[in-house]
């Protein structure tokens, strides 16, 4: 390098080299990636073009359940521009099954297809158009089998078996010994505490019901995109994945490679919400690239991403018992979650749903049995607040019904029964680490419910006439909901912090930037420890070859777990700075303070980071490298011992229902981000607002429709509607609660998922308060209108 570098500066203490600092932790600093994204310059996987890169297209099965009797690719091979075609026959040298929970899914269909849309063959060609045209020329003959495209069909005594082979556990389910498969039930999670029968027998009130929850599409706007490039026996993947290290592990096992020969690079992600967790399109892309001998890109269309992963639809039965004074006694819940044709994260979703079923109350007895069920539909996996979103609206609507039957205030029944900090949530697991009563009172107050303090009353119901509208046509109601979500996943994260000779800082951490603002928050954590200006801290994307291990980006774990690793790594660098400063300033380290851009002693003498690094190495070079590690403490880190923390799911809603049309309008929402410490309050609020709108979509209109033959009927954004600008409630309040009770850096704990579980529950409760109790989501106008007619006649 010939350009003039920084001048050699005098190394040694001097006055006023550094000034006081205001911690950036807790400040809403600008997003580090914001201006790049605003300029259209942020690079996503689909923006990458490798030399010689081919374009992939997938042949999807047109039927839901069938034996494949023949695959003829000869016509497709002759098409100009076609470089390679992959079918099941190309996988004979591999054990081609993957799945982190159950190793049940072949890279492409082998002998049999299990859902409409399952990949049967893949074409790689010089252009996307050629690949698409070639796919249409592949001739496949199917011998159709009976289809079980619903929970009811899959659980029937004569149901066709969707998987006949023995189940094999995957390598990252974290659920201990998996129970044997029972028909199409691939996983069960159950527990029983206390004497359930006696508690129900003693109850003054028992509420019971059957409930239905829909399949939902996460719709990250960037669809699943992967590029695979084999070179010299190594494999490099660029992928829109949330969990690059778990992808690396599965790919290495599939292709028989050591971990270090599989490199996973993650550019910016255009949203994730769980849809890009674990392994998705990577095995298939790697397999076709292996055959083609050239890099291949596969970029899903929305219709393809919808059958790559979705949220589990579910049916459930629940009973809740309470004493005459409103003390809750017992709850019993059975749930069946439809995981589609392959387990994906279904077992974990099922376990989390089971844990969410009781709700955070002081029960005498509880029994829960949650089942994960194969059907001939697209596979279901993670979606933000999974499990909790499935069960919270059910449990909370039953609690409201208990209160109504006892003529009790719905806030009061929660005050009376909610767990308090330190109480047991689940035997052997982490006790409650949040003030739920404080949270629910805040959320109620925020929607104008006069219940901010003890003894607060019910909102007036059924305010009729507004603004000259027909009297009696519109009714309003309010609701709140409280729940917990087991968060943090397996607590293993590493981070490295590097400080260069100019004092600039690079943070290497495996958290992927989905839009949540992880790079900004990680920079703030490092800056907060070191005193480096946050604009001089850079956090890059993940490259498994150079970035230290991080289990995953999900379960609201990044700030808490990966952030703690970053804090420790930054502290490691700070310790080195203090050591050098102590020698140079001739002061004991305990009398030195990190200040803006440097270290200062008690008398105000200081050295800048730049001076300290140079002093340490004796020239304008070298760097300080700090390591941070988070690992299970005093246990295995298993799901049973967890969670890392309980994510709070608290929200309130006010709705209006049009009794003539069944249209439900959400007027007000409130959420509580109980985050221990908000590293960046603005980003915390955005998490809750985004989750609120997804919650409105989940509650009011989002639903994937599978026909009895397994065909997904609404596989475009034309027929699958997500919330738009006009769906924002007139008032959307987010209260940030900072009790410093998180296990993460500066007392922080994660956020961003709880609102998605709580908002639908609050909406359901608000609608019941308006006189229309519902047991099926989403609350479409037709469903609500039919319910209103039923209520009129009953």
């Amino acid at each position, binding site marked *: 390098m010939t350009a003039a570098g920084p001048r050699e500066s005098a190394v040694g203490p001097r006055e006023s080299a550094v000034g006081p600092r205001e911690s950036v932790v807790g400040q*809403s600093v*600008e*997003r580090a*990636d*914001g*201006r*790049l*994204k*605003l*300029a*259209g*310059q*942020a*690079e*996503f996987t*689909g*923006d990458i073009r490798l030399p010689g890169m081919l374009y992939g297209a997938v042949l999807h099965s047109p039927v839901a359940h069938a034996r494949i009797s023949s695959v003829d690719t000869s016509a497709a091979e002759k098409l100009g521009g076609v470089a390679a075609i992959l079918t099941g026959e190309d996988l004979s040298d591999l054990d081609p099954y993957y799945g982190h929970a159950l190793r049940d899914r072949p890279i492409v269909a082998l002998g049999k297809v299990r859902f409409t849309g399952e990949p049967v063959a893949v074409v790689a060609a010089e252009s*996307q*158009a050629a690949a698409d045209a070639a796919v249409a020329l592949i001739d496949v003959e199917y011998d159709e089998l009976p289809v079980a495209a619903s929970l009811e069909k899959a659980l029937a005594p004569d149901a066709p078996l969707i998987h006949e082979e023995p189940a094999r556990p995957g390598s990252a389910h974290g659920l201990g010994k998996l129970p044997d498969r029972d028909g199409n039930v691939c996983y069960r999670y159950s527990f029983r505490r206390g004497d359930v029968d006696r508690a129900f027998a003693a109850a003054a009130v028992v509420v019971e019901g059957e409930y239905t929850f829909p399949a939902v599409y996460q*719709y*990250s*706007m*960037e*669809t699943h995109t992967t590029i695979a490039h084999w070179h010299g026996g190594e494999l490099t993947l660029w992928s829109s994945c949330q969990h690059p290290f778990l992808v690396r592990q599965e790919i290495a096992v599939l292709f028989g490679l050591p971990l270090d020969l599989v490199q996973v690079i993650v550019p*910016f*992600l*255009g*949203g994730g*919400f769980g849809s890009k967790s674990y392994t998705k399109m990577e095995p298939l892309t790697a397999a076709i690239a292996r055959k083609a001998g050239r890099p291949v890109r596969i*970029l899903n*269309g*929305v219709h393809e991403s919808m059958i790559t992963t979705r949220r589990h639809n579910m049916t459930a039965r629940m009973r809740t018992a309470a004493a005459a004074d409103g003390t809750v006694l017992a709850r019993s819940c059975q749930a069946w979650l439809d995981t589609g044709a392959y387990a994906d994260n279904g077992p974990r979703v099922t376990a989390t749903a089971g844990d969410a079923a009781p709700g955070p109350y002081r029960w005498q007895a509880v029994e829960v049995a949650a089942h994960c069920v194969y059907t001939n539909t697209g596979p279901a996996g993670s979606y933000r607040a999974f499990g909790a979103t499935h069960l919270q609206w059910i449990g909370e609507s039953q609690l409201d019904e208990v209160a109504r039957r006892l003529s009790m205030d719905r806030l009061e029944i929660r005050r009376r029964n909610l767990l308090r900090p330190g109480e047991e949530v689940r035997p052997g697991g982490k006790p409650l680490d949040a003030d739920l009563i404080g949270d629910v009172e805040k959320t109620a107050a925020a929607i104008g419910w006069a219940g901010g303090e003890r003894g607060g009353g019910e909102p007036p119901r059924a305010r009729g006439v507004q603004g000259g509208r027909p009297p009696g046509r519109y009714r309003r109601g309010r609701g709140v909901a409280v729940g917990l979500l087991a968060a943090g996943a397996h607590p293993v994260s590493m981070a490295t912090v590097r400080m260069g000779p100019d004092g600039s800082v690079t943070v290497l951490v495996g958290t992927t930037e*989905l*839009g*949540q*603002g992880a790079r900004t928050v990680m920079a703030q954590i490092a800056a907060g420890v070191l005193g480096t200006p946050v604009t001089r801290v850079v956090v890059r994307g993940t490259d498994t070859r150079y970035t230290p291990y991080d289990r995953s980006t999900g379960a609201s774990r990044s700030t808490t777990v990966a952030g703690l690793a970053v804090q420790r790594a930054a502290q490691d660098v700070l310790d080195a700075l203090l050591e050098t400063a102590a020698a140079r300033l001739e002061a004991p380290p305990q009398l030195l303070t990190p200040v803006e851009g440097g270290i200062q002693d008690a008398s105000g003498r200081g050295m800048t980071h730049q001076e300290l690094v140079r002093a340490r190495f004796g020239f304008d070079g070298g760097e300080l490298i700090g390591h941070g590690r988070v690992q299970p403490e005093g246990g295995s880190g298993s799901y049973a011992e967890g969670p890392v923390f309980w994510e709070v799911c608290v929200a309130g809603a006010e709705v209006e229902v049009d009794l003539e049309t069944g249209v439900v309008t959400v007027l007000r929402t409130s959420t509580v981000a109980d985050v221990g410490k908000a590293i960046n309050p*603005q*980003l915390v*609020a*955005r998490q*809750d*607002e*985004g*989750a*609120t*709108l*997804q919650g409105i979509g989940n509650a009011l209109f989002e639903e994937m429709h599978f026909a009895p033959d397994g065909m997904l009927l609404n596989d*475009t*954004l*034309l027929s699958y509607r*997500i*919330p*738009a*600008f*006009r*769906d*924002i409630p007139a008032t*959307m309040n987010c209260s940030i609660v900072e009790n410093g009770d998180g296990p993460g850096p500066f007392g922080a704990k994660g956020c961003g998922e709880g609102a998605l579980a709580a908002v639908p529950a609050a909406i359901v409760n608000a609608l019941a308060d308006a006189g229309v109790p519902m047991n099926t989501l989403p609350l479409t106008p037709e469903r609500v209108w039919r319910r209103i007619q039923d209520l009129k006649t009953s």
Partner: protein
Amino acid sequence: MMEKVSATINGTPFKGEVPAEELLLDFLRDRLGLTGTKQSCEVQVCGVCTVLVDGNPVSSCCYLAVDIDGREVETIEGLAGSDFHRRAADAFMRHAAVQCGFCTAGMLLTAKALAARGAGDERLGDRDEIATAMSGNLCRCTGYRSILDSLTELLGGTT
């Protein structure tokens, strides 16, 4: 079949041949390397691929490249650096209205077309009107409020 196209793209003349069936989105991204325009729904619902043709927002996923013949096209790469973009970017940053960033370019281009309706359109400062006008742009991350706050501030200021 190739067709001759003569157009102005981000202020620069373009003359060349494009396949008759090629979409404007693919033309911009694959042929010109203007990858700031993203692809998502492919059915003209999400607004992610919005660009301006003669100042009007169009979904480039459903617009043939040959149809830009004789017209002016503006993408995020052209908008960036303009005074409007600077003010918009400041407003979006102030309100933290960018999360994953996939929808952002389309939002900004639709907003520019709205702003161009200009002083004659007094509704532009009204939140509800802006929300309605932005209905063709979806965002799955933010919950919209921060974007609407940014746009209300931005467009309100231009009327």
